[in-house]
């Protein structure tokens, strides 16, 4: 049942050809001591080796948050409502249809479905939701991060594998890498004590990969973790990727403190670029690295293309979670294409699996 990584032979060779990999100590030293441009140049040159065509991709999609009701109560979250609180919602079928229709009309190829750990929604709800979407629309569902899946398995007394199989059968196409935060339990105990632990997050991903479901991985940094714990996070992703090859991309983004219960200033642009660059260098077995314009804004996202990123992420026709934390950037597809082009790259629209759907005119 295990699927191989759909890498091109050429890309696979490039990955295997990479020089000796970075150890924890080397990575931490580089991350903490190297000047910005040297670290950037290393990441840029490694990116060039992995993606020598100079293509920068993006996906047209929409975030649909099917519910904001959540028992997790993470300190960094400005989006959730506790069960029974005012303002909680579960999306209606009509609204869901409307959102998907709009996405398709804008040339979208996927929807990203993520929501809270809502105690009132059971496996039947999720299966029904997927069947509803897949029965009506020709669109890829990239949905349900490991905390949602772990929560659902717990609640329904099923194994993660059973839950994933049921969701796949109902039409789930891939899993987003959310909820990883920092994969170090000491940090999670402080910022997201009720969310799945780091082992469980990795376990859900491993099971998904072994079932042939591909996923992304994320890291939310800049809250309570140390630089060393960021590197630890990267190494855990790298180890799992060595075993499964199931991660399509890695997406680091910085914690946005407004309206949350963690009182710390937001990570700066330089910290973001350094984290991006070290991610590119440590994760020598993950082919794609996404820039986060949603948290960094279009200017820094464009600069990210020189610090290891080869993908601009999604046009995000709708985004709610980061917006709830006070950061609202908007980018049209046209503007994404312009940013990529002006940075000297060829822009291309991709699907969830990083297959190129359309190369834009230069």
């Amino acid at each position, binding site marked *: 049942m295990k699927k191989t990584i759909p890498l091109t032979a050429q890309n696979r060779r490039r990955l295997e050809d*990479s*020089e*000796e990999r*970075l150890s924890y100590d*080397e990575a931490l030293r580089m991350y903490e001591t190297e*000047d*910005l*441009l*040297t670290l*950037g*140049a*290393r990441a*840029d*040159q*490694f990116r060039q*080796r992995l993606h020598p065509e100079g293509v920068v991709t993006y996906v047209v999609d929409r975030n649909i948050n099917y519910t904001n009701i959540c028992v997790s109560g993470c300190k960094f979250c400005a989006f959730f409502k506790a069960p029974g609180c005012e303002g909680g919602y579960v999306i209606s079928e009509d609204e869901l249809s409307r959102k998907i229709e709009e996405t398709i009309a804008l040339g979208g190829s996927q929807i990203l479905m993520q929501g809270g750990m809502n105690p009132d929604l059971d496996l039947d709800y999720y299966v029904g939701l997927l069947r509803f979407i897949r029965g009506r629309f020709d669109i890829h569902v990239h949905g349900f991060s490991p905390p949602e899946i772990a929560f659902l398995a717990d609640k329904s007394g099923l194994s993660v594998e059973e839950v994933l199989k049921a969701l796949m059968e109902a039409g789930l196409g891939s899993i987003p890498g959310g909820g990883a935060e920092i994969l170090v339990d000491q940090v999670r105990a402080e910022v997201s004590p009720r969310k799945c632990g780091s082992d469980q997050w990795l376990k859900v991903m491993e099971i998904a990969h072994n079932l042939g479901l591909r996923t992304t991985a994320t890291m939310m940094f800049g809250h309570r973790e140390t630089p060393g714990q960021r590197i630890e996070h990267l190494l855990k992703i790298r180890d799992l990727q060595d075993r499964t090859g199931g991660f399509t991309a890695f997406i680091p983004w910085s914690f946005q403190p407004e309206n949350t219960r963690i009182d710390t*200033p937001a990570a*700066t*642009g*330089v*910290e*973001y*670029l350094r984290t991006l660059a070290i991610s590119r*260098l440590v994760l020598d077995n993950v082919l794609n690295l996404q820039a986060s314009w949603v948290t*960094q*804004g*279009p*200017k*820094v*996202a*464009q*600069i990210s293309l*020189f610090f290891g990123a080869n993908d601009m992420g999604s046009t995000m026709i709708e985004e709610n979670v980061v917006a709830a934390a006070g950061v609202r950037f908007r980018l049209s597809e046209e*503007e994404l294409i*312009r*940013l990529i082009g*002006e*940075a*000297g790259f060829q822009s291309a629209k991709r699907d969830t699996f990083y297959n190129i759907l359309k190369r834009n005119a230069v």
Partner: protein
Amino acid sequence: MKTIAKNIIDSTLEPVHRKVLAGERLSAEDGVRLFNSPNLLAVGHLANIVRERLHGKKTYYVYNQHINYTNICKNFCAFCAFARKETQQGAYVMSMDEVERKLRERLLEPISEIHVVGGVHPDLPWDYYVELVRRIKQVRPEATVKAFTAVEIDHLSEISGLGLTGTLRALKSAGLEAMPGGGAEVFSNRVRERLFPRKISSGRWLEVMAAAHTLGIQTNATMLYGHMETIEERVEHLIRLRELQDRAEGFMAFIPLAFHSANTGLDNLPATTGCDDLKMVAVSRLMLDNFPHIKAYWVMIGPKLAQIALSFGADDMDGTIIHENITHTAGASTPNGLTKTELKRLIESAGFEPIERDAFYRKAA
């Protein structure tokens, strides 16, 4: 371990690299080549060589206050969202008492520079300007009054009847000690005719600055980029500033200003991109070898990018500005004020050493 496989500098930039290492002056062709290079990190690396040679890791910021005394302006430049006609809603002129009140509101803050710019008002009398400078100096004697762009000075020289040098002398004795670098826009007649035909010519702008320098009034210089100017026109602008600085030294800093189009006559134009902003900073640092400082003005490009620009040639983050009007009326989404703590954190977390300066780049007391 992964080491850099090849040098950051590619072969196209190698001749420029050699000149930079030897401290040789770059030509217009070098400037164009730098702007056209797709290798952003290499251009940054070259600029950083010069930046570190001049300033090491030092990064300056100033605790200042802006006074925009009027938004009434007869120039109506196409790129401006701030100007109003006298009769238009929202038009204002600050009275001396209002100016004083604004200054007194912040009297307990350790402000070392008052930055004063306004529109070219058709009717305000010469006395208003002299009194403005005098009053500011009176209320805030320990702060430097950095007032009036070359455009305003040109206008004042017309209404004062004292000629250019006489006008500057009179303002200097009222308390003016330095001048901001605004109003330069782009030194290109082609662009000027299209965007700011009523504004003074590039020749006159440079003449005003030369006269100021001769009288010992130090100034800054700017360039408004990201509208319709070509790369060659940008380079020409930098070279003309460099020539004036050779002839009549007095520029302290160069400040590239990213054009913001919202609410202007050019709102069809997209914003400058991050690459463009960083290259502008880097090429300025490299071309303006006789300018001590290059400023990354966070109001224009945002605090994140201004911080990144410190590794691309900039050594100054400008002010702990709490309230700025002109760029924000043109839709800048940057925060309205940064505190000293925030500015210091930006500088330190980028690996640089923050230094609070006064208007003349001396360490603030």
